[in-house]
C-alpha cells in the first residue's frame, strides 16, 4: 500500500531534524531548507543519504537537486535564473512550486521547501 502524505511528511521531518539539527517545530511545510533551516551544501548529501535509508529508495545524483542547472551559465546569469533556466528548472524540479520565484528568480532564493522534499519523495515511493 502506498504511503500516505502524512507518513511521508513525518519521516521527512525526522530526516531534516537529524540532518540539520533543527527543532521539529521549525520544519514547517513552507520552510526553505537553505534559507530558513540553514542547510549548507554538504547537508544536501546528508539529506539524500538519510532519505534513501528512511524510505528504502535510491536518489541518483542531480535528481532531487539538479546542481548542474544552478552552475550552468546558460541557465544562471548575474545571480538570476534565465528564461531558459526557468524552463529547465520546471522540467527537472516539477515538485517545486516556482510560481512566486519566477517573478524575481534570484538563484539564492530558490524555494526548495520541506513540501518540495515531500513532493519529491512521494514520486519515488508511489
Amino acid at each position: 500500500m502506498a504511503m500516505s502524505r502524512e507518513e511521508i511528511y513525518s519521516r521527512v521531518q525526522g530526516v531534516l531534524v537529524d540532518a540539520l539539527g533543527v527543532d521539529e517545530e521549525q520544519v514547517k511545510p513552507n520552510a526553505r531548507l537553505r534559507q530558513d533551516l540553514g542547510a549548507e551544501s554538504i547537508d544536501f548529501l546528508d539529506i539524500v543519504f538519510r532519505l534513501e535509508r528512511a524510505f528504502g529508495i535510491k536518489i541518483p545524483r542531480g535528481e532531487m537537486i539538479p546542481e548542474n542547472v544552478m552552475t550552468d551559465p546558460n541557465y544562471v546569469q548575474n545571480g538570476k535564473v534565465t528564461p531558459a533556466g526557468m524552463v529547465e528548472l520546471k522540467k527537472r524540479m516539477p515538485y517545486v512550486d516556482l510560481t512566486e520565484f519566477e517573478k524575481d528568480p534570484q538563484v539564492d532564493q530558490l524555494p526548495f521547501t520541506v513540501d518540495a522534499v515531500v513532493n519529491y519523495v512521494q514520486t519515488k515511493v508511489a
Partner: protein
Amino acid sequence: MRWIWIDKFTEFTSRASATAVKNVTLAEEQLHDLYPDFPIYPHSLIVEGMAQTAGILVGEASGFAEKVILAKIGRATFHQLVRPGDTLTFSAKIEQFSEQGASASGTVTTDGKVVAEIELMFSHIDQNMAGMEFPEHNFVFTEQFTELLKTYRSQGEITL
C-alpha cells in the same frame, strides 16, 4: 608533530569496515592541556581518530583517487573519559557511499567499554565544490596515511 591519531589497523574490509587501535601515553603533550594534574585524552582527538579510521576506509574504496575530507560530524556521544595507558579501538563502518561522498558510523572502545559513538560524513571534494580548483595530487592521503594500510596488509612485516 605528525597529525596521525591511530597507530595501526587490526582489521580492514574494503568498502565495508575497518578497525584501528591507538595507545594513549602520558608522554603526549595534549593530555596535559585540559585539566591541571588530571591528564585526559581530548574528545576532539577521539573524533579525529575515528575520522582517520573511517576516512582511510572511504578513500580506499575509490582506490585513493578521490580527495576525501571530513565534511560533517552528524553525532558524537561520549560515555567515559580516556586516560593515559588506555588502548582505544576505533571500529568504523561505511553506511552509504556515492560518487559525491560517504557516511560512516563508528564506535570507540577501551577494554570492551564504549567510550564514544560517532557518525561522520565525508565529501569527495572534487565532486562537490563545482568550480573550485584543488591541486591535482591527492593532498589528503599523504604517505603517512597510506603507510598505515600497507603495514596492515603486510601484517606488520618490514620489507627493506
